[in-house]
């Protein structure tokens, strides 16, 4: 599917200073790498930024295909390691400064998802810089990675802590098409596609511009550091596709029954076709059509008879669903740049093959940290906001070991017991993604 929107209006954002990843869609198929670096002395960190700065792609002409691009982001500990002055450090929000591991309670990252079980280097104070390479083909991916690695080798004093490759054809390891629902950023010049809703104020996604409140959100100081930057939430999950497949098999006798349940859990068929438009059976052509795939709301489905109130997409983007709690859904949008890793497990595989596979959940936005904390406690690990009590998101929540269920509305409703956590958190971090002039400022 062609995920690229076109620039139809004159952009008003400073695109040449904003990092590409903020606006540039993930291609299909895609290839890439997430690397995590440690800065052992400020001079080395600055030298690294100086060397990498020319490779960091801007969002200018973000609508034109590009073979590969690179993104760079820094944690709070990274800013400290770079020797950023205290007056700047203290201007960052408290949850960013604390880091994701310290926010585990707020994020509901407990039990198997708790930081003490995370993979190295997540949750340690050594995570300083993240470098991500995105590419639309293998050769350009390899050469972009090689180019960044050449620079890295030239800078003693910066250590590579982890290197994770990713890539997929646009379908995640559970077999669902993903990554195609994005908010329309006002001022980006993007053409809204049917069902996108109104453009959201730029300041919700890029620091320094008016937000939905009418004013810019709190921006780090000095202005050159904060402006055109954004926050990134990175959460690496291992996916238990075998457990998901077993849940479908335990509760569906035929393939058709299982696929319907799979669609009810997510709110879309695996093709991407939404239940709202294809309530009874999958429609692959609809799932591959960017003009139709999001062209729906829930006005005629208040009870969730087509798209369950507790389904994954209706939780993550309730659109016009009447919520039980006063909520502004327009400030809860995130730009999603998640990447899949590992081979998908086919729907008939009911045992774990022990291989790594999953999703790097990546959310961008001026409120990304607040919003992921909000999503985790209010929309993922609770059902209260849509009147579902303690029922949780069927795909990404941490389910209770006993008594967890998923409800498919109907007459009568079907309550499907013993749902498990289908994704386990392996670690994550809060990053700040500086604009290009901010990278320059940080390198001096």
């Amino acid at each position, binding site marked *: 599917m062609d995920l690229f929107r076109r620039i139809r209006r004159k952009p008003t954002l400073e695109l040449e200073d904003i990092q590409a990843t903020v606006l540039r869609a993930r291609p299909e198929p895609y290839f890439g790498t997430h690397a995590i670096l440690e800065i052992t002395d400020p001079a080395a960190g600055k030298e690294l930024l100086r060397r990498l700065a020319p490779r960091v792609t801007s969002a200018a002409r973000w609508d034109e295909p590009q073979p590969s691009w690179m993104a760079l982001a820094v944690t709070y500990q990274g800013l400290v390691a770079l020797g950023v002055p205290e007056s700047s450090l203290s201007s960052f*929000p408290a949850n960013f400064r604390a880091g994701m591991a310290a926010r585990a309670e*707020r994020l509901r990252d407990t039990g198997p998802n708790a930081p003490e079980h995370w993979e190295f280097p997540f949750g340690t104070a050594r995570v300083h810089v993240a470098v991500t390479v995105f590419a639309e083909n293998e050769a350009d991916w390899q050469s972009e990675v090689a180019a960044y690695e050449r620079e890295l080798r030239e800078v003693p004093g910066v250590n590579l802590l982890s290197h994770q490759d990713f890539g997929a054809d646009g379908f995640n390891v559970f077999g669902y098409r993903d990554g195609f629902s994005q908010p329309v950023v006002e001022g980006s010049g993007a053409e809204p596609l049917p069902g996108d809703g109104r453009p959201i104020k730029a300041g919700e996604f890029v620091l320094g511009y008016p937000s*939905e*409140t*009418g*004013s810019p*959100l*709190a921006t780090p100081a000095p202005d050159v550091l904060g402006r055109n930057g954004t926050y990134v939430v990175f959460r690496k999950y291992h996916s238990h596709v075998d457990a998901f497949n077993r849940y479908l098999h335990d509760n569906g006798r035929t393939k058709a029954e299982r696929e319907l349940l799979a669609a009810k859990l997510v709110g879309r068929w695996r093709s991407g076709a939404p239940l709202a438009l294809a309530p009874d059976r999958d429609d692959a052509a609809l799932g591959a059509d960017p003009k139709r795939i999001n062209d729906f709301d829930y006005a005629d489905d208040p009870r969730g008879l087509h798209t369950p109130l507790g389904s994954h997409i209706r939780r993550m983007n309730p659109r016009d669903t009447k*919520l*039980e*709690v*006063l*909520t*502004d859904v*327009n*400030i809860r949008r995130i730009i999603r740049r998640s990447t899949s890793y590992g081979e998908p497990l086919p729907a008939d595989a009911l045992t774990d093959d022990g291989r790594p596979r999953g999703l790097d959940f990546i959310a961008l936005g001026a*409120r990304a940290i*607040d919003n992921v*904390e*909000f999503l985790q*406690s*209010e929309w993922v690990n*609770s059902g*209260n*906001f849509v*009147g579902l*009590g303690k029922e949780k998101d069927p795909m990404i929540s941490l389910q209770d070991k006993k008594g967890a269920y998923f409800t498919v509305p109907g007459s009568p409703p079907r309550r499907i017991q013993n749902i498990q956590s289908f994704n386990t958190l392996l670690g994550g971090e809060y990053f700040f993604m500086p604009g290009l002039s901010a990278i320059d400022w940080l390198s001096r």
Partner: protein
Amino acid sequence: MSEQSALEKFQTLPAAVREKVETAISDAKIELKLRVGLMLADQKETAEHKVTTAGRVGAKSGEVSELTVIMPLKSDGAARLRKFFKVIDGNLAGAGQVGTLHNMRFVFLENDTKLLFATAYDGEWDPYIDDFATKIPEFMDYLFRNVEGWPGIASPDVKDFIVKYQIPAEAWFVSHPNLTVAEANRLKRQDETVQSFLADLN
């Protein structure tokens, strides 16, 4: 119950409970010691009402949290708020749309120089402050601009401002700790359905 039988019953409680009671309230009468001891010994009841924390500050029992703030008022703040409360006859019915508020009260203290605001609400207090700032900013600012130093609901400093004046409760009880406002609304709707079903049935 006679003092003697209270004492006998107290002796049947687990030693750990008795010790806790004897250490903390040695000066109480045996009847009270027995009541407290029985409460502590009832693990199911105490577990259901377990008091945890509501995020940065405040107590939480089950899903329901408490917030108490005492804030300094501007010189004409109390008079202006009184005028507003009078127009609506002290009836804050519209607050129901927030969907997490069990109750709230506004009380003027110390010769109208301070405002006590107290509420019982679902969840943790800060996730929805941002939503107030874009959904009902006029209302929030109209009420709280009478408070000295109010930064405005859309200000990035507003959460710190509230925390500064918040006084956490030392003890907290909720009769139905797991019944959120949304759940209560759902039970009411279910009951209406059941009642009309019964009415139609007969």
